[in-house]
């Protein structure tokens, strides 16, 4: 059996939203078991990249390819990508009134199982898993019966995203500014949750503005995105340099 090593490969990716080019030739290669950080100034295309990887239909790919586990997924719907193992932790998770956290995650898991031709997860197993993952993220059971993201604090929303990630056990998790809106204690809990879920068979992309998250989730590689391109790649020290001196030197280097 062919064993893939490349989790995600992005070649010369260009994309537009409402006619406006945002990504202008992204190249990225992520192997199994690796953690990559993506940094960059506001408006550089980081969140767009996260959305394009997840298959958001507002973003039109005009050039280039995305391969996931060796398969081209340019045309794959968001739900099919999710079934294949792509997970996006949203920067701004949406509210769904009247749908509890438990009901939502149960539906998500069972829809993915259905797509793979597996029977629904038995309730007892589901419950056990929910308990385990909730305790991992220090979530109490009241939280699970609240309406999804409704009235959640910023920290609760992000914790809920990572809880869903832990439940769905994706092969590729894209964390879009998961650290924004978190105080230091919440940040530690969330980061710790990510670390505990990450292993040699899955990969993580951490999109962030700040170095501090990377103190907890230590990346193997750091990429700087500016104006729709990866302008520099390096190891965790690159993130530290950015934190100290900002992005200006890269602009100069580029020109």
């Amino acid at each position: 059996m062919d064993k893939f090593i490349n989790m995600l490969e992005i070649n010369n990716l260009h994309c537009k939203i409402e006619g406006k080019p945002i990504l202008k030739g992204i190249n990225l290669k992520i192997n199994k078991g690796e953690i990559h950080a993506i940094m960059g100034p506001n408006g550089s295309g980081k969140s767009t990249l996260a959305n394009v990887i997840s298959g958001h239909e507002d973003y039109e790919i005009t050039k280039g390819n995305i391969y996931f586990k060796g398969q081209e997924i340019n045309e794959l719907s968001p739900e099919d990508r999710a079934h294949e193992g792509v997970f996006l932790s949203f920067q701004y998770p949406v509210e769904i009134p009247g749908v509890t956290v438990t009901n939502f995650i149960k539906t998500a898991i069972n829809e993915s199982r259905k797509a793979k031709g597996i029977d629904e997860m038995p309730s007892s197993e589901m419950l056990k898993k929910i308990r385990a993952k909730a305790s991992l993220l220090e979530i109490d059971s009241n939280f699970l019966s609240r309406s999804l993201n409704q009235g959640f604090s910023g920290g609760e929303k992000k914790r809920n995203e990572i809880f869903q990630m832990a439940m769905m056990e994706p092969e590729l998790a894209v964390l879009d500014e998961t650290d924004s809106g978190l105080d230091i204690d919440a940040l530690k809990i969330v980061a710790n949750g990510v670390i505990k879920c990450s292993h040699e068979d899955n990969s993580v992309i951490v999109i962030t503005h700040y170095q501090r998250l990377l103190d907890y989730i230590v990346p193997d590689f750091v990429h700087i995105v500016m104006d729709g391109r990866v302008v520099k790649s390096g190891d965790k020290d690159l993130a530290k340099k950015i934190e100290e001196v900002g992005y200006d030197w890269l602009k100069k280097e580029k020109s």
Partner: protein
Amino acid sequence: MAYTEDELKKELETKEYEYGFYTDIDSETFPVGLNEDIVKAISKKKNEPEWMTDWRLDAFKTWKTMKEPEWSNLKYNKPNFQDISYYSAPKKKPDLNSLDEVDPELLKTFDKLGISLDEQKKLSGVAMDIVVDSVSVATTFKHTLEEKGIIFCSISDAIQNHPELVRKHLGTVIPKKDNYYAALNSAVFSDGSFCYIPKGVRCPMELSTYFRINQAGTGQFERTLVIADESSYVSYLEGCTAPSRDENQLHAAVVELIAHDDAEIKYSTVQNWFPGDKNGKGGVFNFVTKRGICHNRSKISWTQVETGSAITWKYPSCILKGNNSIGEFYSIAVTNNFQQADTGTKMIHLGKNTKSTIISKGVSAGKSQNSYRGLVQVSPFAENARNFSQCDSLLMGNDCGAHTFPYIEVQNKTAQIEHEASTSKIGEDQIFYCNQRGIDTEKAIALIVNGFSKEVLNKLPMEFAVEAQKLLEISLEGSVG
């Protein structure tokens, strides 16, 4: 491949009405038109006593002087009342003891609807009085109920066998001349259900009636009367499906509930009549008058899931006459394509310490219009009346409408009235969020709408909550915008 909005729309348009079939049952139908002779003929056909015939004739006289109301937020071609046949009954007028004696065609119809009587009998403990067109053909569980002194039968049977009860209560909550459609119903009602729960008796099962409209071009004028005597309890469910037909079918039912001191009536409706096709052709016109009266410390709860009909005009109401009585109204109305609904409630606070709760959820999709219209009235003598109203609307797409017409009339300073309203739209961001978690668009819409409707779905009897949830998913055929 990704599921685009256009594809969704296309698929929805081609979805046939689930229960759109027509059963060929040998029927006897009156000639079209309405006059005194027809009213008399209906009464005679049903072998009614003179007082009943006179009652009908009086209603007919009143109706002739009345005008069809035009205040609702509905646009439709008024039915031609002289173009309708006012009586249709399965010919083999049955006197049945078991299902074996029922017309096999009819049984097949029930099978298609998934409401096989046998199954119902055995599995769910639901007693049903089935109305096909206008005359009851089968009543189950009668004997179990009889042991408790509960009367559950067709209104025709009640007129024959319990005339004193009918005569005492009929038209006391909704007078003959209450409104145009109620007057019409009073004159020509063909059949319906009657239910009496004696003092102190708790009805051990959900009482359920399945109404169906079967004969093309036949109006349906059911009459339902539920009487809960002191300290009794009953939960009643009506559920409706109808075959898909081209011409508009008029439906003008009247439901009267009477809750004596310390009694409780829970009345739930799942309505799924043919809503018309995607171009707005056909569909049932539903003009219903439903009202209950609460005596001291009694309670009436209306719960409705309205997904069908081309036109819905319906305001299940409570007259809180007794002190410490409680009225509740929980409603989900879903409209799609060209459906129009103008629905809500009236809570009339007359007694002291009366309480009412209104939870109304409207879901509009396609080019439909969905209106909530509600009245909360507190009389000068209703000390410490309390009302809480919540009206939420959910929109799908850009071509539908949601409207709220709350009327609040308070004549007593001690009243506490709260009204909350919200309008939201299913957002593409919500859909994408669900998609990203592996939930496809159709399932996502169902999930969001079920969440939106939860407070009302939770009020339905268990057996029907699942059915109602399914119905929402079927009717939802909305587009996302």
